[in-house]
């Protein structure tokens, strides 16, 4: 399958449906695996990396899940193409920096992707829409079990799966959910939530993982530790915390609607106004305003039919996605900001003006127990 064909469609996790879809954008589980006694990618010589890549790539391509797949060596991708994959969360920023000796294989719905020779020989991930970490884990677990028959993974009875970085040893699993939390941000409660989630040993990060800024009120919650707990226990712990964060977000939204209605209406109205009438907009500003529109859809201020086009804008307004369709080889940031504004104006012209009278909460308000 060609690159242009795979990216012509948005990933299943963006267009699909899943539990708690209005707050949990996606659920993702990543497993790190290595081949026994082969040097890890960061330490291996080029010839060793190529040897590992070829054997792993062949095994991955033969998976029934990869029946219809896109498979490419990293050096064959342009910087722009790599960036498109990063923006879709199909490869990591670290993997995008790799060249000869690294590869990526993904299925057509973009729900499964395997990075070969990132920090570990294999980093395989499954991603689905909404809160469904259990299903996502089952999906990637099956792939892992299938690969076991053709690849010999580095494993010790005591330490579990052995990884390049000791922080991943054991299950080699990082489970994460991307949460959209405008209510907690607008009511200044987000730092409190992040602190308490951190205290119980889970990590909260920005949009693109480690060390990235939170934009568009999007936060990633994931497990920090990988050794000493079974996969199901880690996911169970994560699920319980995420369910609580969802509840807090719903309460925050209810409280805003009741006590700070004017502020909330004003924010939604302004976001709509700015997006409909700007001629130059940065990616950060666009994400932050789109987040408010998304909140507006959750609160029925905008018709639900516009959910998917707005969600799509979160990805389509990212720098590499903007440029992928343009004929220009390299765009300046001013040109991108202008193009981004044009794209947003075109899409938002389909969305009717906010109808504040229709505002209703998705769930019964539980504001009395604050």
């Amino acid at each position, binding site marked *: 399958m060609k690159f242009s064909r795979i990216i012509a469609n948005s990933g299943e996790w963006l267009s699909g449906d899943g539990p708690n879809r209005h707050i949990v954008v996606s659920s993702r589980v990543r497993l790190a695996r*290595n*081949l*026994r*006694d*082969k*040097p*890890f990618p*960061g*330490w291996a010589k080029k010839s060793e990396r190529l040897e590992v890549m070829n054997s792993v790539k062949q095994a991955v391509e033969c998976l029934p899940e990869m029946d219809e797949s896109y498979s490419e060596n990293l050096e064959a991708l342009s910087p722009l193409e790599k960036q498109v994959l990063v923006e879709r969360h199909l490869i990591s920023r670290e993997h995008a920096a790799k060249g000869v000796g690294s590869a990526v294989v993904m299925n057509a719905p973009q729900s499964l992707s395997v990075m070969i020779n990132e*920090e570990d020989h294999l980093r395989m991930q499954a991603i689905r829409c909404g809160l469904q970490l259990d299903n996502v884990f089952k999906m990637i*677990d099956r792939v*892992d*079990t299938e690969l*076991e*028959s053709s690849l*010999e*993974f*580095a*494993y*010790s*009875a*005591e*330490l*579990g*799966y*052995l990884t*390049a*970085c*000791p*922080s991943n*040893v*054991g*299950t080699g*699993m990082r489970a994460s959910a991307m949460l959209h939390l405008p209510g907690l941000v607008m009511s200044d409660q987000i*730092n409190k939530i*992040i*602190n308490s989630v*951190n*205290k*119980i*040993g889970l*990590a*909260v*990060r*920005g949009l693109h993982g*480690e*060390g*990235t*800024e*939170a934009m568009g009120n999007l*936060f990633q919650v994931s497990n*920090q*530790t*990988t*050794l*000493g*707990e*079974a*996969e199901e*226990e880690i996911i169970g712990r994560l699920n319980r915390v995420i369910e609580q964060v969802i509840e807090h977000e719903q309460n925050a939204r209810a409280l805003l609607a009741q006590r700070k209605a004017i502020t909330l209406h004003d924010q939604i109205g302004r976001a709509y106004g700015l997006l409909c009438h700007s001629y130059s907009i940065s990616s950060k500003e666009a994400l932050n305003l789109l987040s408010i529109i998304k909140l507006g859809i959750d609160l029925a201020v905008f018709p639900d039919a516009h959910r998917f086009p707005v969600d799509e804008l979160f990805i389509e307004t990212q720098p590499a996605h903007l440029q992928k369709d343009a004929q220009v080889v390299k765009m300046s940031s001013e040109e991108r900001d202008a193009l981004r504004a044009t794209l947003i104006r075109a899409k938002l012209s389909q969305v009717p003006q906010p109808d504040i009278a229709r505002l209703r909460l998705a769930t019964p308000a539980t504001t009395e127990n604050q």
Partner: protein
Amino acid sequence: MQCDVCQSKEATVFLTQIVDGKMQKVNLCENCSKEKGVNDPTGFALTDLLLGLGASQEIEKSPSSVKCPICGFTQADFKKTGRLGCSNCYMVFTDGIGPMLKNMHKGTQHTGKTPAAFHKIREHSEKIKTLQENLTKAIEAEEFELAANLRDEIRQAEAALAS
């Protein structure tokens, strides 16, 4: 005070984080703090950063001459990268890695998924262990016919394990 990352500039950003009741501290200079994305301390996991620093001190507990026979990795290399050379390094540097894992994770014994190939090994080695215990008992009780049978069973199980 010096920056923990570049070890050259004066540290101006001091971070303390308590995760699972364990306190972690790091001192950074202006540049390194920006580079590591420490503008919002609440959204930042110190463990990631500390890996390359604290971890390198831990592994020094292994003698400095030790080199992984498979990949040639040494502890000096770990100090530089914070990553290991190959899966065998976990056995070579076990003295240094042990305490580090204890600080980093919930426990030190893997309790999650086991590859199918290891299921068999685990099953057979457990079976052999039980059989051997029974054999000792049988010999003590002078039940030699039972002992002979047990010996044959152990041989079979060992052969299965080796295959």
